[in-house]
């Protein structure tokens, strides 16, 4: 009984300390950041996915995960024409382009997926990152069926619909990339003519 009370007291104290730190942290964000260019202060407001992933250090568990995955899936806007393959040459340019949406980028300026920042993609490009898996030979290895095309499209549009705390940005839901641009990236990865899949 005493132990339970002591535990409860400790928990309350810890909660109080935590919520004081929470308040201090939130105030710090408001005081110590400022809007610049296209980067407004609203960007520091977290949605439910960002909040859960932050709180669980990107290792979420429990029922909340399924519900959020389902919701993220619903956010994907699939192409009305039901087609997913664009132009792989345009896709390669988009994969190389790292600009867009920073405070140094002008609105309407070039925006890309910065895909090579995290992924290996085309065999000729040796300047690739390793934060995400290699996508070399993706179409060759996993096939280019309509299902695969839909999967890749959905993944680029909203990676969180497949892996809730993925490090990959949600290029479609955030508005960073248009439908056509995502189709061009799907083509880069899955088109049999793309250098990604040529022997």
């Amino acid at each position, binding site marked *: 009984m005493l132990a339970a009370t002591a535990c409860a007291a400790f928990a309350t104290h810890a909660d109080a300390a935590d919520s004081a*730190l929470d308040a*201090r*942290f939130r105030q*710090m*964000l408001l*005081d*110590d*950041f*400022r*809007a*610049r260019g296209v*980067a*407004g*202060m609203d*960007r*520091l*407001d*977290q949605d439910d*996915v*960002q909040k859960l*992933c*932050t709180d669980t*250090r*990107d290792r979420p568990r429990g029922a909340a995960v399924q519900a959020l995955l389902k919701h993220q899936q619903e956010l994907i806007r699939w192409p009305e024409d039901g087609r997913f393959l664009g132009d792989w040459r345009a896709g390669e340019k988009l994969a190389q382009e790292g600009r867009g*949406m*920073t*405070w*140094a980028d002008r609105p309407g300026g070039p925006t890309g997926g910065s895909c*090579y*920042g*995290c992924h290996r993609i085309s*065999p*000729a490009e*040796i*300047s*690739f*990152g*390793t*934060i995400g898996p290699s996508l*070399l030979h993706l179409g060759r290895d996993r096939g280019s069926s309509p299902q695969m095309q839909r999967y890749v499209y959905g993944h680029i549009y909203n990676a*969180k619909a497949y892996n809730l705390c993925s*490090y990959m*940005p*949600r290029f479609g839901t*955030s*508005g*960073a990339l248009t439908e056509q641009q995502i189709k061009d990236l799907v083509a880069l990865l899955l088109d049999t003519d793309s250098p990604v899949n040529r022997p």
Partner: protein
Amino acid sequence: MRRAFLHAVGIVLAVILAKPAGAGGDEDVQDTSAGIERYRQMLGEANPAELDEARGEQIWKTAAGPAQATLERCDLGLGPGVVKGAYAQLPRLFADTARVQDLESRLITCMMKLQGIAQADIVAKPFSTSTVRSDIEALVAYVTAQSRGMPMHVPLDEPQERQAYSLGERLFFYRAGPYDFSCASCHSQDGRRIRLQELPNLTTKAGARHAYTTWPAYRVSQGLFRSFQWRLNDCFRQQRFPEPVYGSDATIALTLFIAANANGAIYNGPGIKR
């Protein structure tokens, strides 16, 4: 300029490695990293940061501001005017400002209190451009060089210092913005890189030690000396966050989180980076 630099590195690597080109696996990747590291070692004694160190020392000893005073009575934590070893124990709590401060905010404090310069004037343009040099960045080069060879020992004795560490840790893991990035998105795993730039795992002692002891540094691709405040600023920019206020508590908390994780490491700066 950056592309030209990478192209030049490519040529150097081609000469050093003399291997047939091809779509190899991880061995190509390892060779690239090893080649770049060798290139960095070759540059070891050619670090243009030394030029900024010399300029910083001159600024430290030159009378300036309405008070026409030098910075030679500036207290960086070891007493007025003590520069040697000062960087190795920053950030820390300062009694006169009742704030936990890093080197750059402390230099601002001294420029304001000793020289009478208005804060707004100092922070208006804190980062050098190719045409305008920042005095603060030169002072950073000078002061950090005076801690070369010394072990990092950021104190966590005061409650305010420990709170700064916790706040910095929270900011490190805070996912936000249209790209959902946190510092952890890039800096919480071993052996990762963005393009060809290796990313230290700042959540581990080993990663924090290696990273923190090589900043501030001369950035070859920019031809400029860059401070840690600059590094944080440019990280937040690429994270698609709004801009952090220069020398603010948030930037100091984040710096302290990483610096304290690096405690025990020998400070090797100023460094040289791509």
